[in-house]
């Protein structure tokens, strides 16, 4: 019984630290709001699992897990994997945007220099 309480306290702490940190970044205008939604929902999910352990017991029983905490792990791993996947796609898009922008800047620069040479 004791270790379950400890795990729940850890989950609640983790949830509050995540939410607190990300909201602080918003306050300082250091992050875009659309990028914070995932982390707020993530910390909400942790909080719900910690406050209502019945969900983990029910789901573990349903899916045939040995222990309810395994369900909590699976949820966290799944969410982080999904985030990793979408970040990978976003990173790839950003990469191509930087490439296009760099090309554009260089081409503009060349145009300016060519005009100067013509004079």
């Amino acid at each position: 019984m004791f270790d379950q309480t400890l795990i729940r306290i850890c989950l609640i702490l983790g949830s509050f630290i995540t939410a607190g940190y990300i909201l602080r970044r918003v306050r300082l205008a250091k992050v875009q709001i659309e990028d914070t939604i995932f982390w707020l929902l993530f910390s909400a999910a942790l909080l719900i699992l910690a406050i209502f352990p019945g969900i983990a017991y029910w789901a573990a029983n349903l899916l045939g897990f040995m222990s309810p905490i395994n369900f909590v792990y699976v949820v966290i791993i799944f969410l982080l994997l999904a985030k990793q996947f979408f970040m990978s796609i976003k990173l790839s898009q950003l990469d191509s945007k930087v490439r296009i922008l760099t090309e554009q800047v260089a081409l503009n620069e060349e145009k300016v220099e060519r005009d100067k040479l013509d004079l």
Partner: protein
Amino acid sequence: MSKLLIVIPAHNEEANIVQVVKELTTNYPQYDYVVVNDGSRDKTAAICRAHGYRLIDLPVNLGLAGAFQTGLRFAAENGYDCAMQMDADGQHRPEYIEPMLEALEEGNDIVIGSRFLTVKKPKTLRMVGSYIISWSIRLTTGHAICDPTSGMRMFNRAMVEEFAQNLNYGPEPDTISYLIKNGASVKEVQVEMGERMAGQSYLTFWRSVQYMVKMSVSILLIQWFRKRDTETPYPERSL
């Protein structure tokens, strides 16, 4: 009369852009406009150049917030007194610019062209999102905004500068709720809107759901934690 800039963000609007700009230039030549091409994959930019429209051509796609911010930076740098957003799909009718401008000159910071100020908002599935956002803004600010998702918004000089320089100032209802909370005066003016003339709407069902989640979390939770800083210029450059 105040010097107004109409910002027309355009993403893949080759079918509509000519009609929209032509309507403005022939019937309302007293207003300046600028088309911001948001990295369109179709011929939007080429059509604008061929017709000699005033065009800002973004080399990559930034999304509506980035395209609109570009227009507002243009307005701020070129000394406009106020700016408004006008969709490139023909939904926003220019005959309502004048009443909106009058409302702005009464001393309001933001004027929203609202479809549902005197007209009852229909109880359809499409309007569920609008109801939720209206209710969220009412709950968190105490102000009634009848048509928060209307894209037809006009901003005064102070707002133009604030929008042009800061992070998290997208032209969306959550920014409006944040500004109301910080003392900006927002007024709505009744307008009618047409249907999109041609082409595809950006909002699919799945995107609408995403948009709603983002707006609800943002208005109900995140906006409480934001700090308004109009002193430090260009905070986004110090990320």
